[in-house]
C-alpha cells in the first residue's frame, strides 16, 4: 500500500470513559475560581482606594483644625481671602466662608475618625460575605 487515499480516514485516538464530561467540569471549575479571585481582587482594590481617599480627607480636616492653622484661617476669613469655599472653624459657633457667608462650626472629635474607618470596613466585609454565599 502506497497512497494515503487508500487508507480509511478515521480518528485513531481513544480516550478514557467519560473523559470529555470530566474535561468540561474541570475547566468550568477553574473558570469559577478565576471569577472568584477577580471579584476579591476588585473589592480589595476598591477598599484600598476608598481608605486612601478617607485618610486624605481626614488629614485635610485635621490640618484645617490644627490650632496653629485656626487663627491663621480666621485672619484669612476676616481679610476676605480669595480661597475657594473652605469651611472655617473659629473659636465661636460660626465660621465664615471666603464669600462672607456664615456657617455653623463643626464639632469634631478624634473618635469620629475611628467610626468612619469601621463603617468602611463593615460595608466591605458585608460585600465579601455576600460573595462567599454566592460561590
Amino acid at each position, binding site marked *: 500500500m*502506497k*497512497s494515503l487515499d487508500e487508507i480509511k480516514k*478515521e480518528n*485513531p485516538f*481513544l*480516550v478514557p470513559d467519560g473523559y470529555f464530561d470530566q*474535561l468540561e467540569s474541570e475547566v468550568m471549575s*477553574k*473558570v469559577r475560581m478565576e471569577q472568584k479571585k477577580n471579584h476579591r481582587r476588585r473589592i480589595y482594590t476598591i477598599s484600598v482606594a476608598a481608605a486612601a481617599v478617607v485618610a486624605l480627607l481626614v488629614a485635610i480636616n485635621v490640618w484645617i483644625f490644627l490650632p496653629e492653622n485656626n487663627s491663621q484661617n480666621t485672619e484669612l476669613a476676616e481679610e476676605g481671602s480669595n480661597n475657594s469655599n473652605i469651611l472655617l472653624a473659629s473659636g465661636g459657633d460660626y465660621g465664615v466662608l471666603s464669600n462672607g457667608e456664615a456657617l455653623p462650626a463643626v464639632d469634631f472629635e478624634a473618635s469620629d475618625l475611628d467610626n468612619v474607618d469601621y463603617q468602611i470596613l463593615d460595608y466591605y466585609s458585608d460585600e465579601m460575605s455576600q460573595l462567599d454565599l454566592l460561590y
Partner: protein
Amino acid sequence: MEPIKDQDILDLFGQEKTKEQGFNLLVKKYKQEIYYSIRHLVFSHEDANDISQNVLIKIWKHLDQFRGDAGLKTWIKKICVNESLTFLERKKKMLNIIDEEGYNDYITKTVAEDRFLSSDKIQQLLEQAIQLLPEKQRAVFTLRYYDEMPYEEMTKIFGGSEGGLKASYHFAVQKVEEFLSKH
C-alpha cells in the same frame, strides 16, 4: 438538537451576567475538536489533556479580544496550534535528543506503547508517520487531512501564502506515503 451558534456564544459571553453561560456553551461545542487538534500534534492523551485545559482557560481570558477577522473556530484552532507547538519545542529540549535516528526510535516506541491508540495496525503506522513529521508540517498536515480546513483559513493560523501551505501539505503527504511503503 440544533448546534450552538457562535454568535449566540459571543453574545452571551459579552455580558458579565451571562459570561460563564456563554463560555460553557463554547466548551460544549468545541471541547472535542480542541482536544483532537492538540492530540494529533502531541500524540499523548495526558499531554493533550493538559494543553486542552490551558487552551480553554486562555480562551476564557481572551475571548473578549476576538474581533471576528477569522471565524471563531479558526481563532480557537490557532490557539490550539500555537500552544501545541510551544509545548513540543519545550519537550524536545527536555528530551535532549540530538540525532534523527534517536528521535525516530523514541517516536516508534511511544506510539507502540500507547494504550489510547486504535488497535488497527494501519492506523498505528499512519500515526507513527505523522508523528515523525517536523512539528509545523505536522500541524499543516493534520489540519488539512483530518479537519479538511481550506488553505485560506490556514493562512490565518500559520501566516504565509496558500501556495506555501499547499506545498508543505504535499511534502508531508509524500513523506507519510514513503514511510507507509517501507513498513
